[in-house]
């Protein structure tokens, strides 16, 4: 049971971080379908840091370095979306999809190149970090507390305050609802949208490293992040683009994702004799069902997905 709570919390943390990223981007008016790719790149940055920083450094240093790497790579990568979508008015869905494919392909190429440089026969796309990962974990009885859980909770609170209580957040939202009106009162829409996308890169990259360190100590980059970026988008929609609701939605989705990891620990579930594949599918099925019921009266930012053109009325 404790294990279920632990997994639920860690997966919910991933979903909270990434969904909040999507939330910022969409509130500024840019659809970020590329979150999945941003997660992969952030995960790659963090994983390389885990690999190359010796496991003997103090835990705090390790945590800061890994987070910095994930965040930085995530933000740099999200710039690709920002430039294309904001300056060049590209189709945001297309560019986002490209980012997803590019993220996985680039990560595989990079990891393989590194692995092959170390050992000629190692052609796998896997990075292991069993020892360095311990910096993030604190054992409290049978419960493995992960610092990322705290970070996700902080991110949730900060996002709420930023979006609703600061000048920046309200302006950001204005750019996603009615950019022309925002522009007319002197808000630089392009700058705001850049800020939105970059924040989504920051949170997406962070979510990526959390995801690949949740429950496993090595990651095969050929798998990308298995649709988790899209689950986060589903969480965002289910949470109606509001931080608090996103937090609740993330817990629900996290629970179903955690079940596939730990269902063997529940005699009642094992007795059902369902193949493990069913539990793997569960998060995706649930999100489809949930989306079907909640998308009807969608409260999406009105101007999302539409490139802003100053000259247009």
């Amino acid at each position, binding site marked *: 049971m404790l294990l279920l709570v632990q997994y639920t919390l860690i997966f919910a943390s991933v979903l909270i971080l990434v969904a909040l990223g999507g939330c910022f981007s969409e509130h500024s008016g840019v659809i970020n379908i590329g979150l999945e790719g941003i997660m992969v790149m952030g995960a790659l940055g963090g994983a390389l840091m885990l690999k190359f920083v010796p496991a003997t450094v103090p835990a705090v240093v390790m945590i800061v370095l890994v987070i910095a790497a994930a965040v930085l790579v995530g933000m740099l990568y999200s710039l690709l979306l920002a430039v294309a979508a904001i300056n060049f008015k590209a189709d945001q869905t*297309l560019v986002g*999809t*490209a980012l997803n*494919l590019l993220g996985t392909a680039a990560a595989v190429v990079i990891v393989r190149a590194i692995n092959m440089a170390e050992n000629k026969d190692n052609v796998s*796309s896997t990075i292991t970090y069993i020892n360095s990962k311990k910096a993030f974990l604190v054992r409290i009885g049978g419960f493995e507390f992960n610092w990322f859980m705290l970070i996700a909770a902080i991110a949730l609170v900060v996002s709420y305050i930023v979006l609703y209580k600061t000048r920046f957040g309200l302006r950001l939202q204005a750019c996603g609802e009615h950019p022309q009106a925002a522009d007319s009162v002197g808000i630089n829409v392009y700058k705001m949208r850049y800020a939105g996308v970059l924040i989504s890169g920051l949170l997406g990259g962070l979510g990526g490293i959390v995801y690949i360190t949740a429950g496993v100590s090595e990651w095969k980059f050929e798998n990308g992040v298995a649709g988790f970026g899209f689950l986060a988008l589903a969480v965002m929609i289910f949470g109606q683009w509001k931080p608090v609701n996103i937090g609740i939605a993330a817990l629900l989705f996290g629970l179903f994702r955690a079940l596939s990891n730990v269902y063997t620990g529940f005699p009642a579930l094992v007795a059902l004799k369902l193949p493990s*594949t069913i539990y793997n599918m569960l998060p995706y099925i649930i999100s489809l069902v949930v989306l079907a019921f909640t998308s009807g009266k969608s409260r999406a930012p009105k101007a999302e997905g539409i490139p802003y053109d100053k000259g247009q009325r």
Partner: protein
Amino acid sequence: MNKKEKRSLLRNGAVQSLIASLACILLGLLAGYIVLLLINPAGAGKAITAILKNFMYYPTKIKAMQYFGSTLVKTAPLLLCSLSVLFAYKVGLFNIGAAGQYVAGAGACLYCALALQLPWYFCVLAAIVVGAALAAISGLLKAYCNVNEVISCIMLNWIALYVVNMLLSTVKDASSPYSEALTAKNPGAIIPSMGLSAIFANNKYVTIALPLAVIVAILVWVLLEKTKLGYELKATGLNKQAAKYCGMREKYNIILTMAISGALAGMGASFYYLTGMEQWAVTQTSVPGMGFNGIAAAFLGGLHPIGAIFSSYFIQHITSGGAYVDKSMYCSQISDLISALIIYLCGFVFFFKLWLNRLLDRRDEKRAAQGQKGGEA
């Protein structure tokens, strides 16, 4: 007179698309080359030529012809996936689920072939129906529940992968993670070659799937450009409300579009797995890239069915070519990287056309002004 013709040529939409696509390819290859240089400067030049040469890597003509055939065999499913993507895109839907519909089609046709022992045409039909049904779910959700089709498609991609893995586990080879070989279990399920394989140095995987895929491309073009249905679908894509106001059934049109799109992707899968070239690995943990490469091919082909024939071939050419890079230095995924870059660059095509037209306008203005001045003098 000559100059006037030249100008009108550059103004031509098809020519602009062609230039844009070629620019995307060149920039994509250049970026790929830079990545290769960064990994290991020693073999980068050789690696990029290996990717571009693909089957021409083999010195003998027979061997090259055989591998040319293999590339073509894989082009057929890619072409259908790209048609699937572009058909939906023309109607304003982004069918990222082509990958999942492809998976579903593969599962359906292999199950029909191996477990039910049906002949090939029934297997193809099953793949089409299942692909269409899967895509129709996305269409239904979009039309009636306002669910973004991109997200529902991604969810269905993963669901399809897991279901197909489960389904094909029942017809799995006892000693390997692959589904049973068609040649041993049900040769009647293999798409007939009708002598085509003789052209490709007896590459037995070359079948009538190739000409069929091209015919389908032409049919898609006819459907989109020359029929009332195609017109209605495109109108719905441009403006749902306007289409509804004109008396078109906009919800029905969305679902129908997705179903046709899914049918194309499902058919693509059957055109590949029913050649017997590859078996399905039931332990797969990621969705096959065919559907995603279809997105690259669709946009690279300028979203035109005939253009898709050439762009699909190109994408498959470099994907297959990736197998020939020096494995002691690089990995074959470098081609995936290049195709992903090409998709990204395709995002800039719209801006490129805008910029080109503006440039042409300015040049014409200048020329007109000069002409006037010349007249005065």
